[in-house]
């Protein structure tokens, strides 16, 4: 297993490098946005003096490199800083942004991240079993009417923009047949069943957005293997087609399926922005949009870093699981 451990450490370190590069890209991109926090927050009141005063107070007038270095220095120590908006309010009391009762970026993000993870969890709990089952079934009945119907419907779902799917679901499941609420405003202290009920529509939207890829990959991976000699052997033994696929083909097709599942799980966390806005779901995507709107750079950067980290970690997990699931990779010669 030491080989595996080495790979994990190596990949984690590489992940850190990627994060660092991502942080630079984020910083440059956010700085390239026209307008800044001072202008966004002041709106019509953005006279030159007011803008200058706020920039000075928040250190926005320092050069980009200094700001980046300060931020990165904090981030390495786990301190993602204080949202500019909070720092501005703290200034209103004549106190500084370093006091203990100031809301930090971390304070702001954690509850939102939990909500997003909950949504991702619910979606995954629906999407993954659904996609794998459909994949197995379509492989089993390949080229049948069922296979074609499934392919057409899942591919149509993935080809439509999420907000469109979201509105279609709202129309059919909230407006015409009030099954689920169209408003997913979950909050702490809500009963689990109610929370689940309110999360259902965004979860279904995400499910429709990710099912196709996982299903198609499962189907393709299995069909690929069906020409292998051991499958033929199993068939000749007289096993039922279902048993051939589930017992003999599926375990050997796991590696690509796991990879694509991991990628889609990452999408469930990072691709929620639009879905959260449509359903008013208080997750990290909504926070991200709100923060971009007012150019609250520390929050935007922290959100991006979290998104990047999720991608990297899930990819890593996928690789490790593929290695574990494949004895040939586990014991390289």
């Amino acid at each position, binding site marked *: 297993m030491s080989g595996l451990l080495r790979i994990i450490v190596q990949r984690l370190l590489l992940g850190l490098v990627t994060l660092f590069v991502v942080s630079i890209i984020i910083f440059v991109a956010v700085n390239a946005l*026209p307008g800044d926090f001072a*202008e966004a927050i002041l*709106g019509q009141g953005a006279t030159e003096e007011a803008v200058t005063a706020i920039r000075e107070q928040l250190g926005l007038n320092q050069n980009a490199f200094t700001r980046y270095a300060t931020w990165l220095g904090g981030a390495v120590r786990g301190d993602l800083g204080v949202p500019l908006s909070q720092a501005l309010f703290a200034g209103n009391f004549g106190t500084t942004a370093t006091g203990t009762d100031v809301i930090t970026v971390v304070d702001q993000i954690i509850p939102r991240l939990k909500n997003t993870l909950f949504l991702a969890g619910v979606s995954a709990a629906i999407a993954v079993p659904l996609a794998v089952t459909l994949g197995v079934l379509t492989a089993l009945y390949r080229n049948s009417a069922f296979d074609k119907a499934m392919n057409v419907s899942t591919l149509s779902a993935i080809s439509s923009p999420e907000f469109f799917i979201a509105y279609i679901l709202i129309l059919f499941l909230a407006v015409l047949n*009030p099954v689920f609420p169209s*408003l997913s405003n979950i909050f702490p202290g809500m009963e689990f069943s109610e929370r689940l009920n309110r999360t259902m529509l965004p979860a279904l939207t995400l499910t429709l957005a990710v099912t196709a890829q996982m299903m198609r990959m499962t189907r393709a991976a299995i069909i690929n293997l069906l020409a292998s000699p051991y499958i033929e052997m199993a068939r000749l033994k007289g096993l039922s087609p279902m048993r051939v696929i589930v017992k003999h083909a599926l375990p050997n097709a796991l590696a690509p399926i796991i990879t694509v599942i991991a990628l889609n799980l990452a999408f469930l966390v990072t691709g929620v922005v639009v879905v959260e806005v449509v359903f008013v779901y208080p997750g990290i995507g*909504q926070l991200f949009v709100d923060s971009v709107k007012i150019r609250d750079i520390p929050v935007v950067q922290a959100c991006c870093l979290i998104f990047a980290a999720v991608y990297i970690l899930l990819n890593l997990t996928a690789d490790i699981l593929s290695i574990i699931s494949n004895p040939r990779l586990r014991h390289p010669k």
Partner: protein
Amino acid sequence: MSQLTRRGLLKAGVAAGVLSATGMPLMAAPKKGGRLRLGIAGANTSDSWDGRTHSDSFMIMCAHGAVFDCLTEVGADGQLKGELAESWEASADAKTWTFKLRQGVTFHSGKPFGADDVIASLEMHTAEGAKSAAKPIVSAISEMKKVSDHEIQMTLEAGNADFPFLLSDYHILMFPAGEIDEAIAAGNGTGLYSVESFDPGVRFVGKRVASHYKGDDAGHFDEIEVIAINDSSARMNALMTGQVDAVNRVDVKTEALLKANPNVNIFEVTGNQHYTLPMLTGTAPFNDLNVRKALKHAINRQEMVDKILQGHGKVANDHPIGPANQYFAEDIEQNDFDLDKAKFYLKEAGLTELNVDLSAANAAFSGAIDAAQLYQASAKGAGININVVQEPDDGYWSNVWLKKPWCACYWSGRATEDWMFSTAYETGVPWNDTGWENARFQELLLTARAELDSAKRKEMYTEMQMLCSAEGGTVVPMYANYVDAHSTKLANTGTIGNVFQMDSSRLMERWWFA
């Protein structure tokens, strides 16, 4: 109507909604109870209970409309009444004001409310380094003297007849002295609803205070839940599917869908919110009064109301005073769409043709670019070629407004004439977005400010509106209505405030479940 019986009149009146408008007591007494759920746009993760920072509808509704109180309040009928102040009187020069405060009022924390709280709350706005939109109001107070626990005397630097009106501003909330930081953190005010939970940019839940000085006349709901829904489709959906009882900022594009729903009513008022096209009067060609007049006659205002606001507005007359102002002069001469007049003034300016740039972005107001293009089309007939310059939304207020010779802009309006004029029309103030200077206007502004006689003030403010309309540097095409919607489960008195949206943001206080 010869066979009019009392019963018949009541029936007809109810059907037409006539009686409710005349204020006759036809509705049963408001019913108590229930949990009101609102879907409100204009929420930010940066929201807090600090009244100085409030500028968007979510916090104005929650703080000004539920948790906190001001000294004075503009009633639904537009009349000023006391909120935490019981009564007030001014010296003859309108410089010294004495306010008697309501007795027996307590904050949600249990602390009694008194004169010290007023002083501390007002001083918040002028504190060192503080940023408050109400700073100009408060910094005009040169001295605050506590006469007794429930009486306070304020001396102004110069007379201001509107001073009590200004204190109804939603920024000037009353906080408990000595614990203002804590009150801002927890939301501790004297309002009808105390804070149960507050998640900035997400949700606010309030609970009716058990015994409140406003008594049974206000605050009919047991609980209120204000949900932040910035996305307009999501907000409309929430109302259509009955997950909220009322929403603000109806998207006029999807209005037909709301109207088709029998469980939803749209309610709208024309307030002071208006869209403007300010010209820098120090820059050619706008320094020529005749050019300005030509432009004012080359715009088809009604078309703009119909096409940009989808009819949810009213034609304006190139001055910033609106129907929610006390001395709104509705009957002065309207600058009409008349290409002959436009040509005439152009000729007076010695021109046969005029080429001007109009800078616009939808950051100025929703539909500003379309409005500029309509203007371009309507002005063409008078030989005026308007070149519409599309500006980026970002940085619009710092790079375009006050900088480009002619641009689009909006104003939410102000509660008083003086406040509006002195914000954007007085000579030399930073937001005078046209740089317009007029000696007579300036003289009237200063005289009217200190005048307590209402009839004289009306006369002066009317003349000022006429001056703006005839000579000012701003084209004001239209007033934009506040368009909101509610479920038919809700009822109100029939009089809806027009200072701000959602019944002047006091829906939670004034409405009830039918």
